[in-house]
């Protein structure tokens, strides 16, 4: 038994087993649940890194469930796969790394942050299940399996968002909205599964991509999938759930929710690039995604400026930053059919967009964690009631500066690296888009300067005299994210070359994706 072949499933199965055991353990000892969760997520993080090393050196990995060998995709005498399989390529593992880091730090942050709540075993169990759902969405190579994991992730997120709904009305309201949105999108995905199954009698992404006829039905399937997945990712015309859900969830969960909506973004890219690729009218679909991106950037940031609630403000910024990713990848998609333009600036734009996914998960996670730290000590999220907190919460203030500088795209931090890639490549595609992106960036900076001013600066307020620095586990989580942000900001070339570029290539080259499963045809 060679364990190294089984890494893809172990990444998912360990948190899943832990999620089933946590309620049992919680009956014996409440404290042990948090430790068990952290251990499971640590194992998952280590395995993800090991898998990433393996994929980037050896090549994409498949894992076929229930076959006589993990890599036996086609049983003898058949042209198409019949079993469920995981198909992890450079893009999948890129998202997997984000998920692993974010959930691990979220669990550590929860150790102190959720201490006072009751029902801790349920919280940790749901956190593990959300992790499982996200990993599954990113790794799976089967479209129905994708639907199942989408449902796991959305039900777990709904339960976590409305976790405080026992005492308060707002979390329940936010949870209801998110539940309706995510069930619609999941059911439309199910309908599309039916369309594909009815036409080709296949359920595997790669196999469907290889026999795709681009008939009327396939176009309708795309027209249904793109808005639905964009809705789950929080792009603007369908963004109504995002601020509510992000602001009402507990802070560590919000950080994970950001990564969860990026898993939907990943699915959107996977569908447009790996399933349809060059044969669809890429210019039109690319422009649709670019327009989603532009609207998200602009409306997100303008709505953010007028917010009083710190987490709502950050949630609107999250929408606005999602726009950058859509813009970068949309430009790449628009020029996909044009090899010259693709080489010239298309790949760079996509590198910017994909790199921004990771950067955004890190700095937005950090910002939500600092907002959570403020809430943990002051008990309020209203910016007008805060002030002078830099005196008593020095570390939190420093972490906030790091995060705010990164989101605004200031030079030594990671936001700058990816935004620069987007600006320079998008400028060559269409200068106007690049200018809008820069304006949005400036507005973001202005907004965060305002937040910093009203929350941290000023004289010490009498009602916050008792405020201390937050406990150690919360500081650890925030410090780890800050380190990642600064490291990525200092060595962006290294990351782009080793992590992001393979991911972009694996998206663009559809043949590579299908030939992993179907063999070199």
């Amino acid at each position, binding site marked *: 038994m060679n364990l190294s072949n089984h890494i893809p499933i172990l990444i998912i199965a360990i948190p899943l087993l832990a999620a089933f055991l946590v309620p049992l353990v919680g009956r014996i000892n409440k404290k042990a649940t948090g430790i068990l969760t952290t251990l499971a997520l640590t194992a998952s993080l280590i395995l993800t890194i090991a898998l990433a090393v393996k994929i980037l050196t050896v090549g994409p990995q498949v894992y076929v469930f229930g076959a006589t060998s993990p890599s036996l995709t086609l049983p003898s005498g058949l042209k198409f796969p019949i079993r469920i399989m995981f198909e992890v390529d450079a893009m999948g593992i890129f998202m997997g790394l984000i998920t692993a880091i974010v959930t691990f730090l979220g669990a550590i942050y929860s150790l102190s942050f959720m201490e006072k709540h009751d029902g801790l075993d349920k919280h940790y169990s749901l956190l593990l299940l959300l992790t499982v759902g996200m990993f599954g969405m990113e790794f799976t190579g089967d479209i*129905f399996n994708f*639907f*199942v994991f989408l*449902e796991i992730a959305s*039900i777990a997120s*709904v*339960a976590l968002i*409305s976790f405080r*709904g*026992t005492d*308060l*009305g*707002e979390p*329940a*309201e*936010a*949870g*209801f909205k998110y*539940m*309706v949105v995510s*069930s*619609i999108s999941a*059911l439309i995905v*199910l*309908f599309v*599964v*039916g369309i594909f*199954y*009815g036409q080709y*009698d296949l*359920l595997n992404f790669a196999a469907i991509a290889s026999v795709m006829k681009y008939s009327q039905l396939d176009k309708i399937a795309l027209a249904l999938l793109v808005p639905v997945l964009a809705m789950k990712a929080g792009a603007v015309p369908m963004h109504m759930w995002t*601020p*509510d859900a992000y*602001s*009402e969830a507990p802070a560590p969960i919000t950080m994970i929710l950001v990564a969860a909506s990026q898993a939907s973004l990943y699915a959107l890219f996977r569908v447009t690039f790996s399933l349809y690729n060059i044969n669809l009218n890429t210019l039109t679909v690319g422009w649709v995604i670019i327009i989603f991106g532009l609207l998200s950037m602009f409306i997100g940031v303008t709505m953010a400026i*007028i*917010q009083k609630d710190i987490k*709502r403000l950050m949630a609107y910024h999250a929408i606005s930053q999602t726009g950058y990713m859509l813009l970068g990848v949309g430009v790449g998609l628009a020029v996909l059919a044009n090899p010259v333009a693709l080489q010239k600036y298309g790949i760079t734009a996509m590198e910017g967009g994909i790199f921004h996914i990771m950067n955004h998960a890190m700095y937005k996670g950090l910002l939500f964690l600092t907002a959570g730290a403020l809430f943990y000590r002051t008990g309020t999220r209203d910016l007008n009631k805060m002030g002078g907190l830099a005196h008593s919460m020095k570390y939190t203030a420093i972490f906030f500066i790091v995060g705010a500088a990164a989101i605004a795209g200031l030079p030594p931090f990671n936001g700058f690296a990816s935004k620069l890639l987007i600006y320079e490549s998008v400028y060559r595609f269409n200068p106007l888009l690049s200018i809008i992106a820069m304006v949005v960036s400036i507005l973001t900076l202005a907004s965060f300067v305002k937040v910093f001013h009203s929350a941290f600066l000023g004289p010490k307020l009498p009602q916050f005299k008792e405020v201390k620095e937050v406990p150690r586990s919360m500081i650890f989580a925030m410090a780890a994210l800050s380190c990642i942000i600064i490291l990525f900001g200092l060595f962006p070339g290294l990351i782009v070359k080793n992590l992001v570029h393979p991911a972009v290539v694996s998206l663009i080259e559809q043949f590579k994706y299908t030939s992993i499963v179907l063999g070199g045809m």
Partner: protein
Amino acid sequence: MIDNFHFIVVIIFIGLGIYTLMFKKNLIKIAIGVCLIENGANLFLITLGYKKGAVAPIYTYAPSGQSMVLPTPQALTLTSIVIGIATTALILSIAMMIYKHYGTLDTDQVRRLRG
């Protein structure tokens, strides 16, 4: 057209569900709308599996020589029905929680989160 009548029924289900979600103001009705879409999707999958004149894909006491209907949609539908139960149960409990806090099920009044 008449051959595809079964698919039209599916579309009517899904369309009614979407209509309910868009234009109805009651949380319970919204839950019903989600259920309608879900039933439509399940019905769609199960109609895809039908083959004319075929029997259920179970070999115990099966009539010999008969062709069998496609088994995969049945498995998929089973999965999605259970997922549907879970979704509906959660959506209804959240509606109960909202009723507990707000004292109403009208979406126009359940609006503390705005802006």
